């Protein structure tokens, strides 16, 4: 079962929101609504998040992603639609029940940290526990553990204004982790940090996630961040989710020009993985080694390949091996079995312009082209 499920969420600000939802359902344009002074912040958002997944909502400011996030823990009441958390409809809960869910099962990390300036680091980290009514001793123990987890051990007695931005956000993270909530909502949590620190925090989040296996909904306007962190990504524009898929899906097959224009600046070499661009192992059969030996079996490919990588390896790591040999790089699964190969030409081809969205997802045009040309390139070499 999905941990979190959003079903046709609408959020409309302004007068007569219910009427506006009906109009939107009938296909009226968002801009037309705005002339009445009604703003549709989120329009018909549906998605589900599996346990242990990082679900990223990506969009520019004003795209409705923060509003969407706040509906997930009931800070905002959806105008229409439902939010199911572990099968429980949050929109049907009373304020008290909702507060109980928020204090125990859903926690949140904020863009500007939102640390309480009148509480020490330890008191901040223990805030959620305090709300739950956990006794002081246990609260402090668990808060200290959470701080240790985020690398802030030893700073318990400090005050928020004594910490750097990155450290403050670690406190924010520790505060969210301390309650042992299953679901973490992160609202542009790293956007206010320096690029270097942001990278650090992303790495740390990924590492923590390996250990803790939380379910995370992460909001960002930075596609690189989205691609780095997201198991699944929802791209939002003008209140609507325009594409929902994995990083590769979005990069390789953007749903429309808007998404495509987004992906232009993405460092593909770091986002695309060997598994995403690899060709079938058979395409390497017939290639000859420097010694003139023709490769005929998977084992021969594996032996001759300049490197063997996992499917999740970013392609940037393939350039060096590819440059040293004409033999394709081998891609193996966990058991070491050959699942695909990445020839040099293919590697170069995917760095080019994104593929046009008109091509069906299961047969990307670019890849088809590269498939066709592989043999020739190899032959001419």
């Amino acid at each position: 079962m999905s941990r979190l499920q959003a079903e046709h969420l609408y959020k409309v600000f302004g007068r007569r929101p219910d009427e506006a939802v009906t109009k939107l359902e009938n296909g009226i344009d968002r801009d037309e609504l705005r002339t009445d002074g009604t703003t549709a912040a989120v329009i018909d958002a549906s998605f589900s998040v599996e346990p242990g997944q990082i679900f990223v909502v990506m969009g520019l400011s004003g795209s409705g992603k923060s509003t969407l996030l706040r509906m997930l823990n009931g800070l905002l009441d959806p105008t229409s639609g439902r939010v199911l958390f572990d099968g429980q409809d949050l929109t049907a809960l009373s304020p008290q029940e909702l507060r109980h869910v928020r204090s125990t099962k859903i926690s949140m990390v904020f863009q500007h940290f939102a640390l309480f300036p009148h509480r020490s680091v330890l008191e901040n980290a223990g805030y959620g526990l305090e709300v739950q009514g956990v006794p002081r001793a246990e609260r402090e123990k668990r808060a200290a553990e959470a701080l240790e987890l985020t690398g802030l051990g030893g700073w318990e007695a400090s005050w928020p204004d004594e910490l750097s931005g990155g450290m403050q956000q670690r406190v924010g993270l520790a505060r969210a982790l301390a309650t042992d909530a299953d679901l973490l909502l992160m609202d542009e949590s790293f956007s206010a940090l320096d690029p270097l620190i942001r990278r650090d925090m992303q790495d740390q989040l990924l590492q923590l996630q390996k250990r803790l296996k939380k379910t995370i909904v992460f909001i960002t306007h930075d596609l690189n961040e989205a691609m780095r962190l997201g198991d699944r990504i929802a791209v939002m524009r003008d209140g609507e989710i325009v594409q929902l898929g994995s990083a590769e899906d979005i990069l390789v097959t953007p749903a429309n020009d808007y998404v495509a224009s987004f992906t232009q600046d993405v460092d593909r070499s770091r986002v695309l993985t060997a598994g995403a661009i690899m060709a079938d192992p058979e395409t390497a059969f017939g290639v000859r080694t420097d010694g003139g030996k023709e490769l005929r079996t998977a084992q021969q490919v594996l032996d001759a390949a300049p490197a063997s990588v996992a499917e999740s390896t970013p392609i940037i790591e393939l350039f060096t091996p590819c440059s040293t040999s004409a033999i394709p790089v081998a891609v193996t699964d966990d058991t070491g079995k050959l699942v695909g190969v990445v020839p040099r030409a293919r590697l170069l081809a995917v760095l080019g312009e994104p593929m046009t969205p008109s091509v069906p997802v299961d047969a990307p045009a670019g890849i088809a082209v590269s498939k066709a040309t592989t043999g020739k390139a190899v032959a001419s070499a």
Partner: protein
Amino acid sequence: MPRLPLGDWVDNAVDFLQNHLSWLFDAIGSVVSGMYDGINAVLSAPEPLLLAGILAVLAWWLRSLVAGVLTFGGFALIDSIELWDESMETLSLVLVATIIVLVISIPLGIWASRSKTVSSIVRPVLDLMQTMPAMVYLIPGVVFFGIGVVPGIIATIIFALPPGVRMTELGIRQVDEELVEAAEAFGTSPRNTLMRVQLPLALQTIMAGINQVIMLGLSMVVIAGMVGGGGLGGAVYRALGNIDIGLGFEAGLSVVILAVYLDRITGSLSLQVSPVGRRALAKAKELTGGLKIWNHRPQPVVAIAGVVVLALVAGGIGMFGGSSSGSTTADAKNVGQGKKISMGYIPWDEGIASTFLWKELLEQRGYEVDARQYEAGSLYTGQAAGQIDIQTDSWLPVTHATYWAKYKDKLEDMGAWYDKTSLEISVPSYVKGINSLADLKGKSSTFKGRIVGIEPSAGEMGLLKDKVLKAYGLDTEYKLIDGSTSGMLAELKRAYAKKEPIAVVLWSPHWAYNDYDLTKLADPKKAFGAESDGVHTLARKGFSADNPQVATWLKDFSMTEKQLTSLEAKIQVTGKDKEQEAVRAWLKENPGVADKWTPVAPSGKPGKAASGKDERERPLQVAWFPWEEDIAATYLWKAVLEERGYTMNLKQFEVGPMYAAMARGQIDVQFDGWLPNTQKRYWDKYHESLHNLGSWYGPTSLEIAVPSYVKGVDSLDDLKGREDEFKGRIVGIEAGTETMNILKDKVLPEYGLDKSYQVVDSSTPSMLAELKRAYAKKEPVAVMLWTPHWAYSEYELTKLKDPKKAFGEGDRLTTVTNKAFPENYPQLTKWFKDFKLSEQQLAGLENEIQKRGTGHEEEAVKAWMADNPGIADTMAPQ
């Protein structure tokens, strides 16, 4: 454009409120004045310098050593210019107002911060409250709450409320929304969000609001002086009325010292109490580093310890001072010099009470008193033989008639000290519908057919059986139960506790009336006898000659029923053989009665108020206006009446508030009623609540006067066309006085001067100052004056003739009192009615006062009285 009667509507609304909600205003008034009295008692208890020390330690703790030293210096200065009491009154006033403002404004501010609707309703109301001239609040304040501190505090509260509300709202609204959202995201309830996040973070702003509240309160407090708020405001107002620059400066400076102190202390306090402020302080400390002596501040614990020690010392000195002064007065009152007096008493409650009361009183006055209990017969016999000096429990003329007839030649009757004795049957008040003996008829089932009696031998029991019950036809219905006094009282107590109906045989005075709520059944048929006894004091023959002082005291002695029954009740609860202890405790609870019953200073014949008390016991509240004839008359009476043992509290007033206050009974008397014309308006409005004791001077006249060096101006007509010479001005007195209204509305139009001359509103002292200045420079000046006035003897002035009689008939100076005055002060009423001053006397007195200057009125009066021997006896014949 039709005149919109807006003011009338407000008037009517206020009238309505006053008529229908006076209980509410009274309740508010008593709460506010109770708080004020409490805080003021605390602040004025310690020695000034000690309190200055306490305040200094606070400043040291909250700010710095320098601040502490300056604080001490500032408050010591206030003490040295003798404005300490006033300053503490002002401080109390501000504190009370601030506390009430906070209680109202913080919840209101919180509410406004959470609801846009509330905020948008509250905001314009606050704007109105803040921009309405503050003095306007005094008017309804006086109407609703009378004069004194209460209307001052109420006006201060209204005036100082807005910043409290605003800053609370602002403080909460400006807390970072992300923080509030964070709190909500972790499931914090709205209440806890407020308490744990919003309020702590808003505290600094709220404290800034409190600071503003206090500052506004201080500025308003000065205005409150106009309605008798007292304190520094009163001093400032007095200084203004008398153009007393010195006093004005001193009082103003004291206000400044208070203001600076309160401002800095609340400022620092906001840093100390708000978590954000503490963080800022800690950071600043890290920056400056190192401990410098200037920056050294005592730790909170040390500071609190310091304050406590100083406060304890203060308390200790207070007690020590109290006890030492007590012993010195005792010495001064040692009239008896150890002389022995013997008393005898019958063991009746009122006999025990009065005997031990006098034993204690006389011992306080230095006599040695021996009190013994006797049976009635032997008491009279012993006294007739000269062995017993006094007894205080002789029921005459009825009960003890036989003894009196037998021994009267050997006894002296010192008169009755209690004359409302009666015999009766009483029932608890919770038994409804039984008010008279006649009501008992047909109710025997309610009372189980019983009337609980006392000893069968008692005269009252005989009377009941033989006469009273029969007279009301109760003898068949009820059984009179024989018993004892103590048994009857025990039965009464038991029934009373269970709220059972009971009828008991009782008599007045009795402590049971003090302890229980009982109805004395009326005796319309006078079956208990038409004549009632008085409780007399008897002395042996020759006692008065031997002890004239004690004899005088005993003759003047009287007790009210309340006093007597409360004393009896006290003795009853204290227990047997501790009578004198009970008397002491009772005297402590009734301060002043000892001095009243056994006055040490020789005094004249006391007047008795209707309540039976000496009227001198009640301080006389006298209002005065800063007009010369009134200063003269008021201070003259002050001198005379203080010689006669009265206490007078003088209060300066504006005419309007004075009449309002007098009508409410807050002022007893004023001597400067210009009636029937000038103050007609007030008299017409309030005359039902006032008394006119007649005129002591007259006739007066109102006029415009010019210096004689201005030639050719003898009549009002002559002013016409000479406006350039007088700069088009006629210097007036207080705006709103009837005199000024007559001048503006009647006199000037009558003579066609209203276009060319402008009447300048000012005050009497300012007008006189202007006259003095112009006179010295020989400049032409026209002033509003009246006869009698010392200015006529000081300067050569021409009273401008009023051929058209525009000023109307002359007034007479009249003594005006409140309604209850003749009852409260029968003696004074007589003296005031007979009071007269001749023009020569008044002018002489005014001149004397003028010569000696403000603040020396009393010595001027003394000097004048020395020049006019016998005046005191004429005014207040003994």
